[in-house]
């Protein structure tokens, strides 16, 4: 054992420095990749397992075109909320008020459109304005008055629920005009024809796959040019093919149902925009910095108050978007609308890998977390499982996900 040996495989091929580095560079160490991203890859695996499990348990009904469309329609507003929530959680805060804000914004919209007879878009703009105002209210108290977000938004939860009751005068309003209903119930269908399926939906799916592949490849090329480690090329191809296949399968199923839901377009646009916002903008990076180490962020010149303020304004805006979608889907406004939505959104963020202590989390992760919850609820509903059991299962999944996160962190901490 005196000779110096590295843990390289027995017969390493000579490393030829070919010009096409972007194609061949990188580590092929799949295991290291998985271990390094255990938290992230873990939820993807969990999602696949849960989808597979319910596909079997429901004899494939859960993967039928109609049901997939249903899941999208039914849980889109939770996913919209989860986008804002994960940003709040990364920043080290929490927002308990979003359910009430969903109700309030929907109520304002319903009063204007249903009661006062304004056109649909006036209702939507008013709802968004109310959402932004609510966010600014929370942001003021958290960022400038220094009150913990838990308290501020707990107060907001009561406050805006009360205002909802006031606005609606304690009654439900219904129905919205057809235009308004399109937001949540509309489809883009038949634009390009197709025999028994919608060609347009498939085209959009194909564009999404191409976009994913191209942007992935460009990032990879840049990384290689800056001499950063990247995954091995076969692994990269495998990833693109796998994601592409999932997207195309998804599009195929939608195309055989009612086509491309408008709400899915809204959601996809939001995920794209907020994915970039969190990863690529100064604002997004400062959110991570604040959540990761508040003192260090302050001493690095980050304007902590300003960033915290806008985080909450953004949450208010997204809660309003969810409010519009929800009111459109339920075709009206009810005093109890959006009850407990905040908990679903928070659960989505945490299952999706956000850390309780802040500084960690991704928009995509929160979407996967939300989908895990959605597929589970939907599957259990299909199976006719009692509401009580559904609640128990969802609670346990949340607990296990966060316990896994804490365990991981402790292990990482002790190896330091």
């Amino acid at each position, binding site marked *: 054992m005196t000779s110096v040996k590295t843990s390289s495989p027995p017969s390493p091929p000579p490393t030829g420095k070919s010009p096409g580095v972007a194609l061949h560079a990188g580590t092929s160490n799949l295991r290291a990749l998985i271990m390094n991203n255990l938290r992230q890859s873990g939820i993807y695996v969990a999602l696949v397992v849960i989808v597979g499990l319910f596909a079997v348990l429901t004899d494939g009904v859960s993967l039928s075109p109609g049901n997939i469309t249903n899941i999208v329609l039914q849980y889109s507003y939770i996913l919209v909320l989860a986008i804002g929530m994960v940003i709040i959680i990364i920043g080290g805060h929490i927002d308990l008020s979003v359910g009430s804000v969903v109700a309030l914004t929907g109520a304002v919209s319903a009063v204007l459109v249903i009661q006062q007879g304004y056109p649909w878009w006036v209702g939507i703009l008013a709802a968004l304005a109310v959402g932004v105002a609510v966010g600014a209210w929370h942001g003021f108290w958290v960022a400038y008055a220094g009150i913990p977000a838990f308290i501020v938004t707990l107060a907001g939860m009561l406050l805006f629920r009360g205002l909802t009751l006031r606005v609606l005068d304690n009654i439900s309003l219904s129905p919205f005009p057809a235009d308004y209903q399109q937001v949540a119930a509309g489809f883009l269908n038949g634009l390009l024809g197709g025999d028994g399926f919608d060609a347009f939906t498939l085209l959009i799916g194909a564009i999404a796959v191409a976009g994913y592949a191209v942007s992935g490849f460009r990032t990879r090329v840049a990384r290689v040019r800056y001499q950063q*480690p990247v995954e091995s090329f076969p692994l990269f191809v495998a990833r693109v093919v796998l994601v592409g296949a999932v997207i195309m399968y998804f599009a195929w199923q939608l195309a055989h149902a009612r086509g491309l839901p408008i709400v899915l377009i809204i959601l996809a646009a939001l995920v794209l925009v907020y994915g970039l916002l969190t990863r690529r903008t100064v604002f997004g990076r400062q959110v991570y910095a604040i959540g990761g180490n508040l003192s260090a962020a*302050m*001493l690095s010149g980050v304007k902590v108050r300003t960033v915290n303020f806008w985080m909450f304004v953004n949450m208010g805006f997204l809660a309003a978007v969810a409010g519009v979608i929800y009111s459109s889907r339920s075709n009206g406004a009810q005093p109890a609308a959006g009850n407990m939505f905040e908990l679903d959104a928070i659960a989505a963020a945490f299952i999706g890998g956000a850390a309780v202590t802040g500084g960690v989390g991704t928009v995509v992760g929160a979407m996967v977390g939300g989908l895990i919850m959605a597929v589970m609820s939907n599957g259990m509903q299909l199976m006719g499982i009692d509401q009580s059991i559904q609640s128990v299962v969802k609670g346990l999944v949340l607990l296990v996900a966060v316990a896994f996160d804490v365990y991981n962190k402790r292990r990482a901490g002790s190896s330091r």
Partner: protein
Amino acid sequence: MDDTILEMRRITKTFPGVTALSDVSLAVRRGEIHAICGENGAGKSTLMKVLSGVHPTGSYDGEIVLDGKPVHFRGIRDSESQGIVIIHQELALVPHLSIAENIFLGNERRGPGGLIDWNRANAEAATLLASVGLHENPVTPVIQLGVGKQQLVEIAKALSKKVRLLILDEPTAALNDIDSAHLLDLLRRLRDQGITCILISHKLNEVTAISDSTTVIRDGRTVETLSLASGEVTQERIIRGMVGRDLDSFYPDRVSSPGEEVLRIENWSVRHPSQDRLVVDDASLDVRAGEVVGIAGLMGAGRTELAMSVFGRSYGRDVRGRLFVRGREVRAHSVAEAIEHGIAYVTEDRKRFGLNLIDDVRRNVSAAALGRLARFGWVNGNEEIKVAEQSRRDMNIKTTSVMAVVGKLSGGNQQKVVLSKWLFTNPDVLILDEPTRGIDVGAKFEIYTIVNRLVAEGKAVILISSELPELLGMCDRIYTLAAGRITGQVPVAEATQENLMDLMTKDKERVG
């Protein structure tokens, strides 16, 4: 062999990358006040943490012998059950609980049925308070007491645990002269009652005044144990033991050619954020381009507080004084403004204040000047990688990739990341607060080389350090700070460890 209560034999304690204690031995006689002296970072606190079980048995090498029997402490509870109680520098009282509740915290006086017997607790607390000379009602919340009285509560708490060996870590650091005198009197009385004390103190006048013997520690090693009973050992003699270290050529050479003044503060005063006392008192100093100016001071002298208050008022309240950058008076009321004026502050506590430990090298490097990498709020990720790679090469940061998480790097490499972050803000003046604390010798040398390179490029550096040799080896001029006041300014040619230490301990000049 005389009556030895405690012996620590050949204690060696290492942290990843650093040896904190190396073969340290200590023998304490029963019923004496035994002082432990040494510079900041010499290993005094680590030694006491080993003794009290904070670093449990097995995490160090060596042997602890109490009353002739080897002991193995797995935690504070173990050592306290043997009558060893440590009072830390930062008091460990719960502010909103009463004196009695604090005294018996974790050790509650129970009556029948397991419920706490408050009458008994308060009565016992009153007795204990009387024995430490504190005349307060035991039900008073601790937050209403001054620091000096809180210190006495800590001692009363120790007495309640049937203490035999009381360890005090810098007990007078936060106290004024009157409170300090009271405390030292109390220690004498406790000794007369048979309680052995280990006293860690920077204040050598106190050490010579009340200790029976002192052990000097330097760089994690025992230097000597001096008996103070005869009264022949002077403060100067102890200082010699504390600092006696050969400088050799440990500090890279530098040609000094100071240019024009870059930063100047005048009549700078800072109030403690929650207590009513001045932490920095009417300080004035300046630094020129191409110059390294040192600030020497003992713990609690206000060095960090001075630096942070200059750096966008990130410490203290009621900051007064004038700040000039390149001869022009500027306003820097926020960190962002300070950075804009070309001031950078490299913190003494990189884990708490310097780094986002859960993020990677790349993003830590860019954190203080993300705007330089962004257009219309969009960060150029490729440029960022380039900057981080550049820093990695310039600073010789040892990491597999700039995407590596900073928390997993060694202390020296973390410090280089912090330095990189501040250099990327393109500062004119760098305030380095203990830049080599907790990093190994090789990395220290690298940091010194980097500092010299920066100075050669015309940057101004203010170096705060507890290690006098470091100041002597690196600086052009050294200011000394004691109790918030500048007590001297010495050109390096005239400075010695002895005359600096003398200026740093000039506590008596303190103005009421």
